[in-house]
């Protein structure tokens, strides 16, 4: 016991010494070369100390005395480094100016290795959406912000990273959503509520491509999306964001469905205060949309908060949470002349289909969806060699559907401890344990629980110029206290800088445990009974990737990766013949089963250039060859080509820009006998934007789908029409 106490005393001594020595204060501003404030990150190299500048570009950082290297960075700008020597009690002011580049050369990411690292040190591909991107695009929701990222495609709200998920009506996502590193997929259906986090709170989004289960466990089969919320700047700050807009009318008179123009609007207010070791922020918001088609109205109220306590420079306690109440009408499928069995006829006005009108069997359908989360995190930087984090989280979702009448309440409780250690020879060890418990009470899923316990470790070793990474995670899963399953998810990777860019390679195994909904759903769909299958196994995949990132002088950056994923036991709805106890005969029913083997391979490339200081442009292309190996056919809902073009030009306080997204025609869909005759086209969507910023005021104009291109990606579900909106933001 005495030895234990002595060890504990020795372990805490460096921190105690640092605290006793006092701190120095580094403050100032971060601006671009035109003098506009930037919310840049000021980070002390080799430690977890960092601070994001506020809307006016101001920052303040309490740092330990001594010789420090400070790196100032912002996505889209070239980082600068500053070396300082400070004594205890010093208060030093430094003002930094960052020059714009096509893509910032050394952005810092936190998701790929579950710790802070530079982007080009990651063994897997990562796409970034910065707060500058969010502001320029004037989008309203997180999914809109992520949707234009290279290699990412949303199918009716379901995120696909390199074709990972396809479209399964929200039942189970093969992408894991994190909010500040905390898993946030629904506890019952495993899907993602993109309206969970107000966009006003989002600082940036990191999209990690490929299997991430070696660190994150279940659901990270096809990738990880980490939504990182804003840091709280010192002093009192406020932010008011108001948006208003209108939907275009259908381009053909025969499709018109209302005699007025549909509108949308939102209002968000954020206030924050930070003084000394205590910081807090609160966001309230509401939004309304008339929708762009019949029965498509939506109302949403949301609130979120964050509180931080920094008792010492190297210790941070953070609590955060959000609550969203969303009522929205449900557009079931569009109206067609050829009805499904049991469907009531709808008036097609002599047309084969009416994309803006609903199938009348879905008349009156709406959903009330309440959801929220609460997390508490303790971050501790014990020394420059070791830091750890402990966190607990609670996620709750509650939906009530009307026509058909269904409801479900689910909870997801999670806890994790993670430590990161570094030594002088360049070795970094990340290790941790994580536990989660999900439960559901529902009329269609029943009452069930699911547990997951995981332990993981990953080592990165610097070997010459190369960084080698190896790690694994083991998870134990059980449902309703029985049938425990163990899953091993190893990953190895390497990064090698060369004169032709930085090479990266990785191989990793991912998995997704069946959700409670997939195991226990009991409902009807397309006229068939859907029956439960409690004996489902996790679906698994091996992902391989080889990539290169190269800087093209000072004006460009090229990133390309070849990827290959072999998936096994994919969960899919399947027709089965079962003996019906009532009919006393065999009848066809639908059941989720482990059936498919799939292969997804292709090329994911992007080129970012800045031919002029004020002009940036990006071209991103994804080629996807996705095959269902079970029947040697194309994998459903995977377009072969995905092309994104973006350009932005700034002149003093004004900016203009645009995005163009081409998605090739989806060649195969599920339920081909039912929907196969429907028209399908490729998607060609142009968004244009303009902005003005002066001091604390900014105005942004966005015209999404400016050409009013009419298309659908999933059967009988129209994608948004042209939507013009203006966003006004005032910051204090």
């Amino acid at each position, binding site marked *: 016991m005495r030895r234990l106490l002595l060890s504990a005393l020795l372990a805490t001594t460096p921190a105690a010494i640092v605290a006793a020595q006092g701190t120095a204060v580094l403050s100032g501003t971060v601006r671009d070369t035109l003098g506009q404030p930037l919310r840049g990150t000021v980070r002390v190299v080799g430690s977890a100390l960092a601070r994001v500048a506020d809307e006016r570009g101001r920052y303040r950082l309490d740092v330990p005395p001594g010789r420090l290297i400070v790196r100032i960075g912002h996505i889209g700008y070239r980082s600068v480094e500053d070396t300082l020597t400070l004594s205890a009690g010093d208060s030093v002011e430094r003002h930094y100016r960052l020059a714009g580049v096509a893509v910032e050369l050394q952005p810092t990411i936190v998701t790929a290795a579950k710790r802070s690292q530079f982007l080009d040190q990651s063994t897997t591909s990562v796409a970034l959406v910065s707060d500058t991107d969010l502001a320029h695009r004037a989008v309203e929701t997180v999914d809109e912000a992520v949707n234009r990222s290279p290699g990412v495609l949303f199918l009716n709200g379901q995120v696909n990273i390199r074709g990972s998920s396809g479209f399964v009506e929200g039942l189970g996502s093969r992408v894991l959503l994190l909010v500040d590193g905390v898993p946030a997929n629904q506890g019952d259906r495993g899907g993602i509520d993109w309206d969970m986090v107000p966009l006003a709170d989002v600082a940036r989004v990191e999209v990690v491509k490929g299997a991430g289960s070696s660190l994150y466990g279940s659901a990270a089969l096809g990738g990880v999306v980490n939504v990182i919320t804003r840091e709280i700047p010192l002093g009192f700050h406020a932010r008011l964001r108001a948006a208003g807009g209108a939907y275009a009318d259908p381009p*053909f008179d025969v*499709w018109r469905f209302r005699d007025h123009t549909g509108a949308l609007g939102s209002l968000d207010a954020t206030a924050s205060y930070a003084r000394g070791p205590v910081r807090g922020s609160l966001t309230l918001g509401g939004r309304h949309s008339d929708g762009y088609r019949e029965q498509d109205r939506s109302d949403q109220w949301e609130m979120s908060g964050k509180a931080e306590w920094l008792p010492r420079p190297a210790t941070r306690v953070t609590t955060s949470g959000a609550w969203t109440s969303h009522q929205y009408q449900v557009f079931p499928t569009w109206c067609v*002349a050829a*009805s499904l*069995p049991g469907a009531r006829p709808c008036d097609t006005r002599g047309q*084969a289909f009416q994309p803006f009108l609903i199938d009348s069997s879905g008349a009156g359908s709406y959903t009330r969806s309440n959801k929220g989360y609460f997390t508490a995190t303790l971050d501790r930087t014990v020394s420059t060699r070791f830091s750890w984090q402990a966190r607990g989280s609670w996620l709750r979702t509650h939906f009530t559907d009307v026509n058909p009448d269904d409801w479900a309440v689910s909870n997801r409780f999670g806890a994790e401890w993670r430590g990161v250690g570094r030594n002088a020879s360049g070795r970094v060890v990340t290790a941790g344990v994580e536990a989660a418990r999900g439960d559901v009470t529902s009329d269609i899923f029943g009452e069930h629980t699911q547990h997951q316990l995981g332990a993981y470790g990953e080592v990165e070793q610097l070997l010459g110029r190369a960084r080698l990474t190896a790690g694994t995670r083991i998870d134990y899963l059980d449902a309703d206290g029985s049938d425990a399953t163990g899953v091993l998810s190893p990953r190895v990777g390497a990064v090698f800088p060369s004169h032709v860019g930085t090479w990266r390679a990785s191989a990793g195994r991912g998995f997704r445990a069946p959700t409670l909904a997939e195991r226990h759903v009991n409902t009807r769909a397309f006229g068939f009974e859907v029956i439960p299958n409690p004996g489902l196994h996790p679906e698994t995949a091996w992902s391989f990737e080889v990539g290169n990132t190269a800087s093209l002088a000072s004006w460009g950056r090229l990133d390309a990766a070849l990827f290959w994923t072999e998936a096994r036991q994919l969960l899919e709805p399947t027709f089965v013949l079962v003996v*019906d106890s009532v009919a006393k005969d065999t009848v066809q029913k639908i059941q989720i089963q482990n059936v498919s083997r799939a292969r997804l391979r292709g090329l994911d490339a992007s080129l970012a250039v800045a031919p002029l200081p004020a002009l940036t442009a990006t071209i991103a292309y994804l080629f996807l060859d996705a095959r269902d190996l079970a029947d040697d056919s194309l994998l459903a809902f995977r377009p072969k080509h995905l092309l994104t073009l973006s350009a932005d030009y700034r002149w003093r306080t004004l900016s203009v820009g645009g995005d163009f997204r081409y998605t090739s025609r989806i060649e195969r869909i599920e339920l081909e006998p039912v929907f196969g005759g429907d028209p399908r086209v490729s998607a060609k969507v*142009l968004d244009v934007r303009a902005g003005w910023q002066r001091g604390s005021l900014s105005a942004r104009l966005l015209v999404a789908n400016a050409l009013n*291109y*009419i298309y659908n990606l999933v059967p009988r579900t129209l994608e948004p029409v042209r939507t013009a909106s203006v966003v006004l933001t005032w910051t204090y």
Partner: protein
Amino acid sequence: MAICAAVALACNEGLHPTTCPGICGTVTYQGSLPDSLRDSTAAVLIVAFSTFPQTPADLLRFQPPVPAFVDTGGPPRRYVLQVPNGTYEWVLAVWEKKSTTPLGAGNADSLLREIGFYRDGRDTTAQGTGRVHVGTGGGGAAAIDFVIDFTRMHRICHYFPPCPP
């Protein structure tokens, strides 16, 4: 420049109003569904055959795989059959009886009744003479209209005699 090219690519594309993607027309109801059939009716549907069935087993090779379902009465009803391009010799309405066993060639005669079919206006004498051409002239075949008459239901054996007692 790339954006301009994209704009040019996207012009005049996308979904457009389509009146008929296959075989379309109107069914008119002659009378209404008899009360005696109301409880035993599973569905009334419209299907098409590229060649007139030669055997009872051919009756299950219709297009499209999921047929168009229509009402059992009421005002004239527009229908659309999303079928591949080609020629169809028989477009008809079928009454299907409720059953706990899957439909097959063995029980087709007891579960299905022909209740109306399209006849070419120039030759109304026999089934299989109402040929419908889809896609050959660019587009679907519209105005393939016919009458559903529940008082003139024909068993399968009507086309493949003899009928069992």
